[in-house]
Each structure stands twice: as C-alpha cells, then as structure tokens.
C-alpha cells in the first residue's frame, strides 16, 4: 500500500511512527489528498453513510450481546429486560433495530446511484461485485438478527426462509435439518444464528475494506460518467468531501434519530412482541420491509416448470440470442442475424419471441387454479412438472440478486451515466417504481389481484436485465457527452 513516497509530518511522534509503519502516509494519500471528481452530487454521500451505519450496528450490537441470552426459554424475556430494566437498554435496542432499517435505506440508495450513473462498468466491475456481496451478507445478517428476539415473526420468518432449502430436490430436507440443527427451528437454530449474527458483520467489514481498496484503485465515478482527464477535474478529498460527507451524514442521521425516538416501531411488526409459539402461525407472515420486494418475487412463481413453460422460455432465449451476442465475435446460428450484425430483423424476432411467450402462457394456464381447485386449461403433459412452483420461486428470488452480480456484462453500452442515455434512464426509473410495487405486493397476503400484479412486476424486473439492457446495448444512441468533468461543471454554471 503506502510503500512509495512518504508524506512529511510536522509532529515528531507522528513522523516517528510513520517511518516504521506508514499508516499516516496511507491516510493522507487515501483520504487527505486523494483526487476525487469535483462534480459529486449528494448521491455520493451514501457510501460514507452506510459505513457509519455499519459501525453503529457493531457498537450497539456488541452492547446488546452483553445483555442478551441466546436460549429459546430466555431470549424473548432477555430482550424485554433490555427494554425495561437495562440502563438505556431501550435506546440501544431501538438504535440497533432501526439502525438495520436505515443501513438498508442507505445501501439501497447507494445501489440505485451506482445503477443510474453506470458505476458498475469498466473499470469498476469488481468494485460493484464486492458491493453486491456486501448487500448479500447484510441480508443474511439482518435475517439472523431478526430471529434473535424470538418473537412470533422471528420464529415464523425463520421457518419460512429456511423452508426454501427444502425446495431443493432430493437432498433438500436433509440440508434444512442440518442448517437448523434439528427438525424444526429450535434452540440449536437460535444459538447458531446468534453466533453467525455476531460473526457476519465483521466479515462485512472485511469486504468493505476490499470494496474501498478497489475504489481507490479505479477512483470514483461521477455524475457525468466520464473519467477525470486533467488535474482540473478532481479535488482533494479533504476538505472538500470530508465536509460534504459530514453534512449529508448529519442530515441522514437526523431522520434516523427522529424515527428511532419518535416512532421506533413503525418499521417493525407488532407480532414480534408476542413470544415465539411453534404451535400457532400468525395469520399473516411478513418479512422486514427491506426483504419485501424479494419476497414478492418468491411468491410470484405460482406455477411449476412443465414442458410448455420450459419450451416457452427456451424460444424467448433463442430469440434473444443474437442480441446477447451482438458485441461478440460469436456468429449466432439463427437465420435472421446477418453477418455484419447490422440489419436486425424485427419481424422474425417478434414471431419467435411471441411464440415463446404464447407457449409459456399455455404452460402457465395448465397450472392456473380456478376457484373450484380445477385447472384453467388441460393439455397433454401439462401436469408433468420438472421443477415445482416452490423451487421456481426460490430460483427466481436468488436469480433476481444474481442478476445484479452480472450486471456489468448485461449492460455493455459504452456510455455510463443515465443522464446521457434517455432510454436507459426511463427503463431504470420504471425499474425503481417496479421495485417499490414489488415491495407493496410483498406486504399483502398473496390473494386476489396482488398475485397477477406481483407476477407482472417480477416479469418487468427480469426483463429489464435480460431483455431491455441487451437491446439498449445494441440500439440506444446516447446524447453528446461533455469532453471533461471540468467542462461539464463550467457549462452548468453558465446555464445558471
């Protein structure tokens, strides 16, 4: 790391230490003079905010762990004791509880920022992947943390989520038993979740370190999406961004503190103040709000994979193949892609894709249940299911996160920032609305119109990544991009 030129320090003690272990040189280089694009907007605050929330979670968590008892007989009461008897316990627990929510708010905004400004593109692919990994670890941590207070939602949430594993064919049930350490969610489960809930945040710290290391290799992206070219483009991190980050952080914390003190339970579920009862399921199980969109995707798959569903998906993928391969040397052995890949034959595409869609719908209708429990359509082999709806839902849910991992290779359009990509911008903003709709669907019981709504929203989510992005790579014409960051900043100033 800071093995190159060392900085000079006036303070003798600092100088002495730095000569032997150049931590001060490192800080100076990475956070003092570190060149940072001069045109950041407030969306660039959320990395620092997320980092602060992580530290806050660890501090409050360690103190909570000093009062908490990971045993099915005691857990619920020990949390109630924290709330009533431990000095300031109520505050520390509410900080931890709402801290998780605000951590997710910060990270969601941070991810949206990255998507809008194309921060996942070359040379930041690995930086992005590490970010998605952090998100995944956070979800695991929060899920296990939510089990600890051993309320009804803790218990039944854990039952439903670990039940996903039983969807795996043949060995699923054994895996589930192994994960739980018993035949149901019980003391063994609670204990291991506590152990892992303590461990994972420190793993997150490790991945955050790699994330920031990668960031300091490539440098930050910025609202124009063009890389700095001359020394007119960046500013030293300190004092410009230390100040801006601190200001943004304080505003964010204001909201966090307001919720924590005035409405500490609005984001939670009242059923979690009832102790876990393995014999009684609450009427309506909902996960924490930050999981709702993914929960909706899980439940959107109400049908298994029969030959029609499989053939339909296969045909649609075949139609998309030339689009996927547009930027590669690979010659798609499908009739309608001419050699120089210029003339895209829309008619043939629509026929093939439409046919795939129609066959998919037939497979869906074969499994669509009418009010009397019979099926909407009877076709030969329609009831022959290769993968159950349960497995399909689990795959769709994990797939929706997996798509984030491969985003850098799905969107290969050369222009990064959505500001210069009008079509991408619309598609992305629709995705944002779509994600919120999924969240609403996840909150409601799976009944009535919420089911088709969740299915349509899931279809859009998947299509954004697998259909829209590849098409935009091929067809979207970007607006003129400014020559440099400096020029963009000056032009904006003039316009005012």
């Amino acid at each position, binding site marked *: 790391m800071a093995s190159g030129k060392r900085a000079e320090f006036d303070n003798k003690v600092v100088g002495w230490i730095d000569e032997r272990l150049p931590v001060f040189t490192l800080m100076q280089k990475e956070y003092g003079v570190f060149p940072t694009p001069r045109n950041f907007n407030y969306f660039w605050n959320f990395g620092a905010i997320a980092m602060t929330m992580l530290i806050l979670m660890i501090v409050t968590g360690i103190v909570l762990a000093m009062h908490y008892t990971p045993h099915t007989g005691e857990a619920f009461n020990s949390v109630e004791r924290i709330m009533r008897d431990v000095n300031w316990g109520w505050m520390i627990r509410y900080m931890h509880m709402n801290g998780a929510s605000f951590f997710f708010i910060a990270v969601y905004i941070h991810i949206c920022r990255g998507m809008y400004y194309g921060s996942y593109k070359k040379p930041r692919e690995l930086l992005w992947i590490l970010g998605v990994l952090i998100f995944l670890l956070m979800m695991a941590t929060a899920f296990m943390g939510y089990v600890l207070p051993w309320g009804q939602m803790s218990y*039944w949430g854990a*039952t*439903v989520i670990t*039940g*996903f594993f*039983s969807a795996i064919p043949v060995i699923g049930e054994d895996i589930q*038993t*192994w*994960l739980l*350490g*018993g*035949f*149901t969610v*019980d003391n*063994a489960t609670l204990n*291991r979740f506590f152990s892992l809930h303590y461990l994972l945040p420190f793993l997150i710290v490790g991945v955050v370190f790699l994330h920031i290391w990668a960031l300091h290799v490539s440098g930050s992206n910025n609202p124009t999406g063009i890389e700095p070219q001359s020394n007119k483009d960046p500013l030293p991190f300190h004092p410009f961004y230390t100040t801006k980050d601190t200001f943004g952080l304080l505003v964010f914390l204001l909201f966090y503190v307001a919720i924590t003190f005035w409405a500490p339970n609005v984001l939670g579920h009242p059923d979690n103040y009832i102790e876990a009862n*393995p*014999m*009684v*399921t609450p*009427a*309506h*199980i909902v996960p924490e709000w930050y999981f709702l969109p993914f929960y909706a995707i899980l*439940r959107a798959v*109400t049908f298994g994979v029969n030959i029609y569903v499989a053939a339909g998906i296969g045909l649609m993928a075949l139609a998309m193949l030339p689009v996927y391969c547009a930027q590669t040397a690979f010659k798609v052995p499908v009739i309608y892609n001419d050699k120089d890949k210029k003339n895209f034959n829309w008619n043939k595409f629509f026929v093939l894709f439409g046919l795939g869609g129609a066959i998919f719908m037939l497979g869906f209708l074969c499994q669509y*249940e009418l009010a*009397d*429990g019979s099926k909407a359509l009877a076709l030969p082999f329609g009831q022959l299911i290769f993968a*159950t*709806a*349960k497995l399909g839902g689990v795959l769709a849910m994990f797939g929706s996160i997996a798509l984030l991992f491969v985003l850098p290779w799905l969107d290969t359009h050369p222009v990064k920032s959505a500001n210069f990509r009008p079509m991408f911008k619309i598609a992305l903003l629709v995705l944002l609305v779509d994600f919120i709709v999924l969240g609403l669907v996840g909150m409601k*019981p*799976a*009944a009535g119109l919420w089911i088709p709504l969740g299915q349509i929203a899931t279809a859009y989510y998947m299509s954004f990544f697998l259909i829209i992005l590849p098409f935009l790579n091929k067809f979207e014409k970007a607006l003129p991009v400014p020559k440099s960051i400096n020029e963009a900043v000056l032009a904006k100033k003039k316009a005012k």
Partner: protein
Amino acid sequence: MSAKAAKTHDDGGTRRDFLYLSAGAFGAVGVGSFAWPFLQSLAPAADTRALATVEVDLSPIEVGQAITVVWQGKPVFIRHRTEKEIEGARKTDVATLRDKESDEDRVIKPEWLVMVGICTHLGCVPLGQKKSDPKGDFHGWFCPCHGSHYDESGRIRKGPAPKNLTVPTYSFITDTSIRIG
C-alpha cells in the same frame, strides 16, 4: 513409468506432476477429514435425536375432536374422524389429486388420522384443529399463509403446497394409544 523413461531428464515434469497431484490429493483428504467433525456438529445432536418418539393416549379424544401433540418439536395433528369425514375422504377420486394418495394409504385405522401439522408449502401450521377454525373448501385444514386447502384426509386440494400433509411413522401400542416415530 519404465526405468528408462525415469532416467531421462525431461521426464522431471511427470514426476513433479505426480508429486503435486498426490500432495494435493492428501491435502484435500486432510482438509476434508478436518472439516467433517465441524460440519457434523451442526447436525441434530444426540439429545435432539433422542426426542424422536412420543406416546399418545387416544382414549379422551371424542369422535369429531382433534388434538395437537408435539413430536420432534413439530405439531402433530391427531383427529378422531366422523363417519361422514371418512366417507368424504374415501369417495374422492384419487386420479384427480395433486399428490395421488388414497385415504386407505394414509391411515392405520380409518377413524384415526395422524399427520404432521406443517404445511408442505413453506412450513406454517394450518388451521382446522379447533371447531371454530376455518377448514378450507375441502372440509379439512386451511393454511392461512398462502392459502393451501387440505381435505378430510389431509391431502392437498388447492393452493400452492405441493404435497399432502405428511403422515409420520406411528404404530398402535394398544387399541387406544399410539407411538409416533
């Protein structure tokens, strides 16, 4: 490897490859056998496994009543079925079912229906044990989580669950008591 080949110098690569491969293989076996006890420690412990059977006295359960007992930490539904329920379960055409099982295959004595009270969808406890509970469209059990309907035999009839409610292994110790597990 022939003695002649072993003497030539450019054969060193093969020997080295062999050493790498065998060292790697031993290493992998070593890591595996080190990891095994740790992975096994996560599986159900002896005391958890020891709770694997439970005995239930059926004599206090009246016709038309049901009780829930705990076995391996799971709720087990025991229902003393009425004539009407047995008849309803038996006249259903098995071929039309999602998980094709006849009522005869799901009970030892027709009046006693014993099954694990965990929805085969994602593991909620279905309603239908109490008189006041909703019993779904098929006079059995109804899972409120995502709306699975089970019939008088605990077979899935409607909703997202893929399978019938599981019948645990059990046997009659006397005419009016059973051992589950």
